[in-house]
């Protein structure tokens, strides 16, 4: 299904076509007074709505209506045409309501029970067919003649069949479609891991035992009891998640559906399909619950790692501040004495030039070291500062000073084109330095040719800083968790700028754009 790769309204014809095909397939399980006991078109409808959100409801309804009118399933002629049109629109609207409500609640109550993905999806897929069924109640009671059934028993039967057919369609068709859409969206990255051998054996065994029980019960004349399979599928869902449970449901359906297509008695078919839909609902909810649980655990583990990292950074910062303090004390002495030595060696006659050169060199080096220490302290010591005009050249100079030791250790050369000294932005210096430092450090770690380029230039009333490096393969090697990049993006956006990542064959660049100070209100 390529419909998710299509942009704009181009997905609509694709949906209409898919709906038409699945609608025809459903007729195999059709009967009098109802359309089908297995309605896969509902699965497609649900998947599209879930992906596109409830606001796509109008389009979905329009597509379905068009298909039904064009293929002559309903006629817009007769006296009852409003009823006909409503009966076509009803399911789409019902599904839209269910999807909209669940997504709204899941967003509103983030972190609450049952809102961890994929739990909302599981709930919505079990709920949608019921909402659609409830919407049909007014027609059933006000215009029973319109439902083409006579007795109240048949009305109830028809409603049950409708719900069961939709449930089976949604639970069997929507999950693989959504999985496929996720896979397409995330490129080649497989969204599904290869199942463990032990899990496959366990699941198959559980299902086989349950099936044997069903067969045995049937054999001794107690009828087709689906409960053992229900328990087996619940077991599989809780143990192995949605993917596994979907396979189990599919296997069950593949056994049940072909048989029921040939059954003549509605009661027997309905009973089997109700059993099957119960299996699908319970299994799918159990699988969703297991996946949500796994997701929550993964989130927790990630948060733990971040906390640990933050704790380490805090210690590191405290240590570095202490080290800076310890260094600045003797450095003050050194700087004063070195300057004095250089001064007297220059003014006293008879001092060997070598001695004078040495003294000058020591003076220069201690001065450079003193500047470095002051910058490091400014960077690590203060937490907040007010936005003030900041020269981009000075910013890049600071960044280069801070990253140089690490770059040198990795034998990476920083190639800097600082550009126009008039480029000034309004910025919190420490924060913005942090952002650029993070980008440059990432580049230093990822570069393939021991070079990182930092270029600043004016661009239509803005300044653009590009941090780029050569790349060996398409996928950049990353250590760390991308927190640095996240922090950089947050800081840059807080400064009214934006960060873009541009990847070309053999190179990658992070481009940050900031408004120039003169253009700010």
């Amino acid at each position: 299904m390529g419909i998710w790769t299509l942009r704009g309204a181009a997905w609509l014809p694709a949906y209409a076509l898919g709906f038409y095909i699945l609608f025809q397939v459903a007729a195999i399980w059709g009967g009098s007074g109802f359309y089908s006991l297995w309605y896969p078109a509902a699965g497609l409808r649900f998947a599209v709505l879930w992906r596109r959100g409830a606001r796509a409801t109008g389009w979905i309804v329009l597509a379905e209506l068009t298909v039904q009118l064009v293929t002559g399933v309903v006629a817009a002629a007769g006296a009852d045409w409003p009823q006909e049109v409503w009966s076509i629109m009803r399911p789409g609207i019902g599904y839209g309501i269910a999807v909209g409500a669940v997504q709204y609640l899941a967003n509103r109550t983030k972190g609450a029970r049952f809102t961890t993905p994929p739990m909302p999806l599981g709930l919505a897929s079990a709920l949608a067919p019921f909402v659609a069924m409830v919407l049909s109640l007014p027609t059933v009671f006000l215009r029973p003649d319109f439902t083409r059934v006579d007795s109240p028993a048949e009305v109830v039967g028809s409603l049950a069949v409708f719900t069961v057919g939709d449930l089976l369609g949604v639970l069997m068709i929507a999950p693989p479609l959504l999985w496929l859409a996720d896979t397409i969206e995330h490129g080649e990255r497989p969204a599904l891991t290869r199942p463990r051998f032990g899990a496959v054996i366990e699941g198959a065994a559980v299902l086989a035992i349950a099936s044997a029980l069903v067969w045995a019960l049937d054999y001794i004349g107690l009828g087709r009891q689906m409960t053992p399979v229900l328990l087996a599928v619940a077991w599989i869902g809780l143990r192995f998640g949605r993917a596994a449970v979907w396979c189990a449901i599919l296997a069950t359906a593949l056994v049940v559906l072909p048989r029921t297509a040939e059954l003549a008695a509605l009661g027997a078919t309905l009973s089997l399909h109700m059993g099957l839909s119960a299996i699908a609902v319970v299994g799918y909810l159990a699988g969703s619950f297991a996946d949500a649980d796994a997701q929550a655990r993964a989130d927790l583990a990630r948060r733990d790692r971040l906390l640990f990292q933050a704790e380490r950074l805090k210690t590191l910062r405290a240590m570095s501040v202490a080290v800076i303090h310890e260094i600045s004390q003797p450095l003050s002495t050194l700087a004063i004495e070195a300057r004095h030595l250089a001064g007297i060696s220059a003014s006293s006659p008879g001092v060997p030039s070598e001695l004078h050169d040495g003294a000058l060199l020591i003076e220069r080096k201690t001065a450079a070291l003193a500047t470095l220490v002051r910058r490091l302290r400014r960077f690590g010591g203060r937490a907040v500062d007010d936005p003030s005009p900041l020269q981009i050249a000075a910013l890049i100079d600071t960044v280069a000073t801070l990253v140089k030791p690490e770059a040198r250790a990795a034998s990476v050369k920083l190639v800097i084109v600082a550009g126009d000294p008039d480029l000034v932005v309004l910025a919190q210096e420490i924060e913005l330095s942090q952002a650029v430092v993070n980008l440059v450090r990432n580049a230093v770690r990822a570069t393939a040719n021991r070079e990182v380029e930092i270029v600043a230039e004016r661009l239509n009333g803005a300044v653009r800083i590009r941090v780029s490096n050569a790349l060996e393969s398409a996928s950049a090697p990353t250590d760390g968790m991308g927190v640095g990049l996240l922090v950089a993006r947050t800081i840059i956006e807080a400064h009214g700028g934006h960060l873009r990542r541009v990847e070309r064959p053999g190179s990658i660049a992070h481009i940050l754009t900031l408004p120039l100070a003169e253009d700010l209100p």
Partner: protein
Amino acid sequence: MSQPGTVYVVDDDHDLAASVARLLRRHGHAAEPFLDPTPLLAIYEDAPADCVVADVMMGDLDGFGFADRLRAIDPATAIVFMTAWPTTANAVDSIRRYGGLDYLEKPIDEDRLVAAIAEGVAWSHRRRANIARTMSLTPREREVLNLLVRGHPNKVIAAELGLSPKTIEDHRAAIVAKTGANGLAQLIALTE
């Protein structure tokens, strides 16, 4: 060339204190290093300085505590703070609460230190001269002077102190005679 003065350098890092003292001596000041502020306070009354350079973080008595006690002994000495742990709060306090002239970050910017000391010595000299000139004023004359420099006319001062304007006139003449300061601007300069 700035005026030479007496400068004390207090830092618990002896090498740094000695180094700074030597630097200041090269700039013509009579500079002495001190490792601990307490012995300095003990001898200070007998040998006051024009300027004191003090580290903020020291052992028992920190730079600010030291400054408070120093001010109590000598309100006419300039104080310059230096620190390896600069914070905005400390920088503000050192100037506003402890009457510091400057707050220097280590590693020290030598030129700024020398400039601050020169400024401090000059300020201290002025201050001492002013104190000497107002020394001979009677308490009542001092009261009148304090109100004068706030820009009050004689009548208001008279009402404030419960004296007649004529008496105020006399006090004013005495102040001018004793200090040699004439006009409001010069009087204000006296009380700086």
